[in-house]
Structure formats: structure tokens, C-alpha cells
């Protein structure tokens, strides 16, 4: 339904094609010299730490890519609500000059919107009228290496600056008023597969950022930089140099046997040694959550490298496929919890962590950290210890878990995109529901021996979609206190892009076929939809200017799933 044969064919072995994004010498990449063009923002921009701390209660602004440090993507504005959302109309459409995958979460402060595009352009725009102020185009270095599209998920804002990570693995600080680059810091070597697509997080004078590169044999990390001058403050490596073999876990987080040959792995570690930690992957490519009360940073870590060939990386491959808590001031690890040890399916942990409260098994409210997995489960952890309080029922079909990949291909559900891909979830504290954008893409998993290829795509096999099997998406609402599905809405196309929840009892989500929709937060009833003309594969945001609420979402399509490309941010309001 909606996915024709040629499309499916074009999607087969998509991950093997991820390399195709690397280093495309497009017009967008070579133009510009690092300075913004256009006009300065006609007001001064200043975002204090207390405003950033209070973002969850701020109904006028949208100050973090995921709404707040807790990343609930639940916004306090309620002028647009389930009673009137049916009347929602476009207020303006902002067209960028880059027609390519859009994953940006626009930041809105005092009526000014900062949005990004593929290839690291930033636009500063009047959030009420769509009038463009400045436009910054990043000039990429000679080599960029990234899978899955030249994406960018947005800026972070703090003080009078915005911060962006780039495809050539730099972190930039720009003047929010003029777009002038104030400093630029090389995070790591793009030739070795490091790149940036995530929105950084700005907190307490620091900029937190991780890295892409799990398909290229990087050694993952989260780093903290001084927001003032770009000086590196600390690095947490997601792959420890010692002890990455872990506890030789037999079962996954849901107590299913992962069919590891642990004796063979131990023998391999004995004979081959543990030096492979240098290329073991473990990217962190979505924004971390921050608990200011305990000065703790929470994030999930991606897959080990190579994705499918595990023989030469024996052990649990810590801290890949894990949720990790580190100290905000030092980067020192507090705890970790691994979902899938020694992953050979790329069913890693990506969707950003949400901080909230949930009932434990005895009914007591506890502070929790929540993650939606590619596995199709929502995992609820104690925020202080990492203890897994519960995992939800599966949101999408699971079959044949954990069959090992073979040369000719082994079928297992979910496919390697999930479940929940990078798409941020949203949580509504009133309904107690977390809303997750899911995919159903049946795949076969193929393994092939593969030596480290020096920063080139390193899968150790292939993922292939099964052309005869239908693909679809599912917006699922899961109760964090029980782990039960409250409702689900199935969609024609696999969902990627993320969710927004609002105090108007609404949930907003887009689809690759161009539809952007609003649902009743309690029931999942569709209340409104609008056809944007290109894939809506970015998380929506909302804000108020002059007492009027707006909802903004990018419609730029998606490289990874080949949804129709566009170049626009649509902004909606009540008439």
C-alpha cells in the first residue's frame, strides 16, 4: 500500500548504500565562505541559563531541540487544542535553497526562528512572518564521511549564540544576531568516519556533542566544550579501552537469548586481543538529556562496528547499544545499562532519552529515564541507578529474534531501522503516555567477513529489505507506568522524524508521503492533517508570538528511506 515495487527495489540494501552520501560535492557544499549573508536579526538575542532551565514551562519559546533538558517534547502552549485544531491553516512556508532531507527541529526564541538544512545551512527567520534575516552556509572540508544523508537536526542556543555540529565534524559557535562564526572546533577526523548531524546541547556554559560513525569504525564519544571559546573540557568515550567485553551477557534486556557463541568469543579475545576498541563504533548521534538537579547527562549509544560481522569484536562491546549516565562536570560515568550485547543486527539505541517520573512495580513514583528502542520496546530505567524498571510490550512485530545473520541472509523482525529509529519520542505527563514513531520493514540480515577499511563504510555484510513484504509505520502510545500500549495508529509508510506533544492534548507527527497530522493525545483519533508536498520526516515544534500559537515542521523528505525531498518549513496557526 503506497510503496510500489520500484520503490522497494530502490530501498533494498539501503544501508549498503549509506556510503553514497559521503562527500557529495554538491553546490550547497562548496558555496559560501563561512560568513552569513543577509541582515542581522533586528533585536538582541539573549537566552540565559534560567530560561533554558525553565523551557518546559515556557509556552512562548522552543529553546531546545527536544523542548527541554528532560526532552519530553511536551510543550506548554495550549491555544491550539483538540477542540480547534481542525481549523489549523498554514501561516507561512519558509523555503530554503537546499532540496534535501530535513531533520531540523527549529529553535524559536522571542519570535526569531533558527532552522537548519542538509549540508549545514542555518537560517534566522521571523517566526511570525517567515521573513528571512541571515543565512549561513558552512563550507565543508575536503572529505566528509556520513551515512544516511547529509542531515542536520538543528542548533542549540545559549546566551547570544547558536551552536551547530557539521558534516565535516566541526562544532561552530555563531552570533545569533548576525550569523557570524565566532569559533570553530574540529571535533575529530572526518576521514576516519566522524561527522555531526545531531543538535548539540547547551548547558552551564558547556556545549555537549557526540558523533556519528558507527558504520565506519569510529570510537564513539560525548564531548563537552567551553561555550565561550570552544576549548575541550572533557571526553567520555563510549568504548572503554579496557573492559569492553563486559559480563558476557547471554540474554538481551528482555530476557531473550542472543545465541552468542561465548566460548568462541572468549577464545578470539584471548588470541586477538582487545585493541579493536579503537574501531568499535558506538556513535552518539542524538541530543543527550540533562538532569540539572544531579548534574547528570543521559544518552544512548549506537551500534558496534562492523554492524553485522561480530567475530573479530568479541565480548559485549560495551557501551554500544546502551543507555549511559555521566557526570555533567567531569564526563565520568555514573552507570550504564546495555540492551543488546554483541549486537550483529544494528538494532542499537538511538532515539533520545526522556527524563520524567513513572511508577515502579510497587506503584511508587520514581524519577526515570526512558528510551524507545529499535527493538520496538520502550525501556523505563531508574534515573539514579539505571535499573530497568520495565520494558513495554513490543510496539511492532518481532519475529525470529535473535537469529544470527548468515551469508545468504536470515529474516528477523524488526528490520535494522526499528522499531523506533532516531525519531525523538514525546511524553505527555497528563495522559502518562509516551508517543513513539515506529517502522515495520522486514529485512534479511547478511554477514560477510570484513577487515577495517580505513574510514569507509564497514558493515560486514548487508541489510536487505524483502520486496514481497509490506512495509508500514505505527505511531504508538505507551503508558510509562504499565508498559502497555494505549493506542496505535498505523500509517502507509514507515515513520521516521519524531513526535511533538502539547498541553492542548495533541500529538503531532508527519509521514513520508507529505502528510502532517494532529491526533488526540488520549485516544489517537486523527483530528487534522495537511499535505506538505514532500516527506514530513522531522520533529515538529511549537511556540507563541504576540499571543498567537504556531506549529512548525520541516518537510524535506528523507534520504535513508528515500521519501520525497523538499526544502520547506511549514508553519501553521489558527485563522
Amino acid at each position, binding site marked *: 500500500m503506497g510503496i510500489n515495487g520500484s520503490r522497494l527495489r530502490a530501498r533494498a540494501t539501503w544501508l549498503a548504500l549509506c*556510503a*553514497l552520501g559521503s562527500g557529495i560535492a554538491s553546490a550547497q557544499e562548496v558555496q559560501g565562505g563561512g560568513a552569513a549573508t543577509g541582515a542581522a536579526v533586528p533585536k538582541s538575542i539573549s537566552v540565559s541559563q534560567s530560561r533554558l532551565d525553565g523551557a518546559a514551562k515556557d509556552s512562548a519559546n522552543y529553546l531546545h531541540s527536544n523542548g527541554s533538558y528532560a526532552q519530553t517534547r511536551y510543550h506548554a502552549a495550549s491555544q491550539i487544542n483538540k477542540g480547534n485544531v481542525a481549523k489549523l491553516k498554514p501561516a507561512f512556508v519558509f523555503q530554503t535553497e537546499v532540496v534535501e532531507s530535513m531533520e531540523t527541529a527549529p529553535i524559536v526564541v522571542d519570535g526569531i526562528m533558527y532552522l537548519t538544512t542538509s549540508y549545514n545551512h542555518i537560517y534566522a527567520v521571523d517566526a511570525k512572518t517567515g521573513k528571512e534575516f541571515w543565512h549561513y552556509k558552512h563550507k565543508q572540508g575536503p572529505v566528509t564521511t556520513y551515512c544516511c544523508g547529509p542531515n542536520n537536526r538543528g542548533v542549540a542556543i545559549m546566551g547570544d549564540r547558536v551552536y551547530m555540529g557539521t558534516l565535516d565534524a566541526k562544532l561552530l559557535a555563531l552570533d545569533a544576531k548576525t550569523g557570524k562564526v565566532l569559533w570553530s572546533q574540529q571535533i575529530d577526523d572526518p*576521514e576516519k568516519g566522524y561527522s555531526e548531524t545531531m543538535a548539540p546541547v547547551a548547558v552551564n556554559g558547556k556545549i555537549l556533542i557526540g558523533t556519528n560513525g558507527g558504520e565506519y569504525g569510529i570510537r564513539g564519544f560525548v564531548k563537552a566544550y567551553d561555550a565561550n571559546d570552544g576549548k575541550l573540557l572533557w571526553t567520555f568515550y563510549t568504548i572503554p579501552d579496557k573492559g569492553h567485553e563486559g559480563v558476557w551477557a547471554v540474554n538481551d534486556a528482555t530476557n531473550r537469548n542472543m545465541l552468542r557463541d561465548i566460548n568462541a568469543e572468549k577464545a578470539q579475545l584471548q588470541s586477538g586481543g582487545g585493541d579493536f576498541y579503537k574501531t568499535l563504533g558506538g556513535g552518539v548521534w542524538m541530543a543527550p538529556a540533562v538532569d540539572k538537579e544531579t548534574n547528570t547527562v543521559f544518552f544512548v549509544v549506537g551500534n558496534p562496528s562492523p554492524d553485522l560481522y561480530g567475530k573479530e569484536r568479541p565480548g559485549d562491546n560495551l557501551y554500544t547499544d546502551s543507555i549511559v549516565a555521566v557526570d555533567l562536570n567531569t564526563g565520568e560515568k555514573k552507570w550504564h545499562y546495555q540492551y543488546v550485547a554483541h549486537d550483529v543486527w544494528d538494532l542499537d539505541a538511538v532515539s533520545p532519552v526522556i527524563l520524567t517520573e513513572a511508577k515502579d512495580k510497587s506503584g511508587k513514583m520514581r524519577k526515570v529515564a526512558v528510551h524507545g528502542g529499535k527493538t520496538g520496546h520502550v525501556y523505563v530505567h531508574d534515573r539514579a541507578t539505571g535499573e530497568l524498571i520495565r520494558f513495554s510490550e513490543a510496539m511492532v512485530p518481532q519475529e525470529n529474534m535473535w537469529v544470527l545473520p548468515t551469508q545468504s541472509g536470515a529474516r528477523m523482525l524488526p528490520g535494522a531501522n526499528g522499531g523506533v529509529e532516531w525519531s525523538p519520542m514525546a511524553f505527555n505527563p497528563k495522559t502518562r503516555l509516551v508517543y513513539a514513531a515506529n517502522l515495520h520493514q522486514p529485512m534479511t540480515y547478511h554477514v560477510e567477513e570484513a577487515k577495517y*577499511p580505513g574510514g569507509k563504510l*564497514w558493515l560486514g555484510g*548487508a541489510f536487505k529489505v524483502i520486496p514481497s513484504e509490506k512495509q508500514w509505520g505505527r505511531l504508538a502510545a505507551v503508558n510509562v507506568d504499565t508498559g502497555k500500549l494505549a493506542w496505535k495508529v498505523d500509517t502507509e509508510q514507515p515513520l521516521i522524524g519524531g513526535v511533538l506533544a502539547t498541553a492542548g492534548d495533541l500529538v503531532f507527527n508527519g509521514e513520508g508521503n507529505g502528510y502532517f497530522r494532529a491526533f488526540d493525545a488520549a485516544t489517537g483519533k486523527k483530528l487534522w492533517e495537511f499535505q506538505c508536498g514532500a516527506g514530513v520526516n522531522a520533529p515538529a515544534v511549537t511556540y507563541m508570538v504576540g499571543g498567537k500559537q504556531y506549529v512548525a515542521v520541516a518537510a524535506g523528505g528523507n534520504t535513508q528511506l528515500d521519501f520525497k525531498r523538499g526544502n520547506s518549513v511549514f508553519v501553521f496557526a489558527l485563522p
Partner: protein
Amino acid sequence: MRTIPRWICALCALLAALAAPAQTAPPKAALCVACHGSNGNATIAVNPSLAGQTARYLYLQLRDFQEDRRSDPQMTPIAKDLTRDEMRALADYFAAQKPAPQPFKADPAKAKLGKAKADETLCTMCHLGGFAGQNEIPRVAGQNYDYVVKQLRDFKDKRRTNDAGNMTSVSRTLSDADMENLGHFLAGL
């Protein structure tokens, strides 16, 4: 208006950058032409033509020869002495050269079988429509027959592994006849 001069400067710099590689051969290019032909069109058919190849691919292959992920008695020692900047300059230069018509006379019947096998194997998903290549995936349209067949055999037999096994996986199901047919098809493009 401060923005206009800056814009013109950026444009001039861009045009200069685009024009430069095609015009002047970098000094180290003299090392290449004996085997790869003047302007990168190799007349010794077991060697690849470099003209029109993607810069990204050429650069990565030089780096792989240097770091022993790909090995060849001629190429390895040459690459060992190149700096990264020299590699980039060579890659940009040969990428900007025009591919000459292929002297190899492809057998139409074999080329037809080769095309059918290419379609079945989904080659263009990585090598792109027209086999023009992109990024780290090489252009193979119009490439020398002997070179193409040798590479396919080397991938299949794991003598060449610097693509991390993607082509090994693909060539696993190719017979000798398939490889030869593909060689005819690609040389004729």
C-alpha cells in the same frame, strides 16, 4: 553594502577552485602517466583509466595503497611516498580529465548478458545510473575490460578487500562467464 564585495570574492574563489585542477597537472602526475596513460586514459588494459573517475574514489584508493589495505607491486611503493595533499591534488586532477573513447571492441551478445546480470545484481544502486560512480564508489562506465574482470575475480577470491566486503558479497554469485560479460558491458558504456 558590505555583502556585495564579499559575495563577488567568494564567487571568484569558487570559480578559481573549480578551474584550477583541470588545467595544471600536479608534479607527481608524471609518476602516473606511464601506466595510466597521458591524461589518465590507460592504454595498457589491465590498468584502470583514471580520467573522469570520482576524486573521492581516487583519493581513497591512494590512501588504501599507502596504508596497505589494497596492495599492488607498482602502486604500493608509489603511494607510500605521497602526502595527503599530493593525493588530493592527483585525485582532483585525474577526476577532471576527459575519458577517451574505449578502444576495446565489446561483443554485443556478451554485453547484453552482462547488462542483464548487472540489472539483476542491482549494481547501479551503488555505482549509480550509467555507472558514473559516486563518492567512494567508482565510475566503471568505459573502464578497461581486463581491469574490470581482474577486479571482480579479486573481490570474489578476497584478494581485494578494501571495500569491506561489499563487492565480495556481490561477486560471490558471479561465474567467470558473468564477470567477462560484465566486462564487455561496462567497457562498451
